[in-house]
């Protein structure tokens, strides 16, 4: 995910060396706190704008303020799944261990955001639509995404052989990725109770600017948060998987010396 960013500063192709777990481990350790700090700052500013600056909605009153969590979480839950599918594909094609580890490190955070999207959606649906849950195309496909995340995590955790576990997970990630465009376009393909997109690439956003600002800031905060947590998680995965190598031995010695 962050490899692209590094390609600027170094000579061409040299960023590929970070696909080696040994190289990526310290890099991830250095970057994670920065992303966490960015997430915290954006989150605080986003919440301030969302809760204190953004005006009351003409149609829904105050309850629309759930949007500042709901939409970023829903976007993130879809995007993270696509990134998982991307890393799984890279892992299968290039046979790189780190790619599969990235996919596994992303899953819990994607699942968390997926649950948040469903939960906040339920709490938003009751006062506006009049129900916590309805078998609407948007809601139903989002629920399926939740099951895909849980299935991915359960399956990869259950298979002990690392390479088999990687490949089984990659299969769910790639097949399940079909569901993401279904979620996204469900509101335009079918007559759904769920309203259409307020923000899209093809038209001007149908939101007041302060509301939009709060929502986008929260979305960027969710991005930075996801990157930070994923980097931290992948470090544990790398240690685990590479535990027989010499460099992990040195790392463990260093950790032991610190403790």
């Amino acid at each position: 995910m962050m490899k692209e960013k590094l390609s600027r500063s170094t000579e061409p192709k040299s960023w590929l060396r970070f696909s080696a777990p040994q190289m990526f481990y310290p890099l991830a350790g250095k970057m994670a706190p920065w992303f966490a700090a960015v997430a915290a700052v954006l989150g605080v500013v986003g919440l301030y704008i969302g809760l204190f600056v953004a005006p009351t909605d003409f149609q829904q009153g105050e309850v629309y303020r759930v949007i500042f969590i709901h939409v970023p979480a829903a976007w993130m839950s879809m995007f993270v799944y696509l990134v998982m599918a991307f890393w799984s594909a890279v892992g299968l094609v290039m046979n790189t261990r780190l790619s599969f580890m990235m996919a596994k490190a992303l899953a819990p955070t994607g699942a968390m955001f997926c649950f948040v999207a469903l939960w906040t959606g339920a709490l938003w649906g009751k006062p506006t639509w009049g129900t916590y849950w309805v078998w609407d195309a948007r809601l139903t496909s989002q629920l399926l995404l939740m099951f895909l995340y849980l299935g991915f995590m359960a399956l990869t955790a259950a298979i002990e052989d690392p390479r088999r576990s990687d490949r089984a997970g990659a299969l769910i990630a790639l097949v399940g990725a079909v569901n993401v465009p279904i979620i996204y376009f469900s509101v335009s393909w079918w007559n759904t109770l769920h309203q259409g997109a307020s923000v899209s690439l093809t038209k001007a956003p149908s939101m007041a600017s302060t509301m939009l600002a709060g929502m986008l800031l929260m979305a960027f905060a969710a991005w930075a948060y996801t990157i930070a947590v994923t980097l931290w998680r992948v470090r544990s995965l790398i240690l685990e998987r590479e535990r027989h190598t010499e460099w992990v031995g040195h790392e463990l010695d260093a950790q032991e010396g610190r403790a």
Partner: protein
Amino acid sequence: MEWASWSAFWAMGGSAFFVWGSYFVTALLIGVELMMVRHRRRDTVRRLIRLRRAAPPRADVRVIEESVQ
């Protein structure tokens, strides 16, 4: 500033349960996830150190396992 008073803020125009229910659960889950990530890091390092002490790495074993991967 949108609010006349703090109590108006917390009341959320009568939608307090739905708005704060959303924000609270999200904050809780993020807190839990951060804690889990920290614990996992600590557990992994501890467990691997213990394993390393129990069975110090042998060059021949390491070479075989790396070639398998």
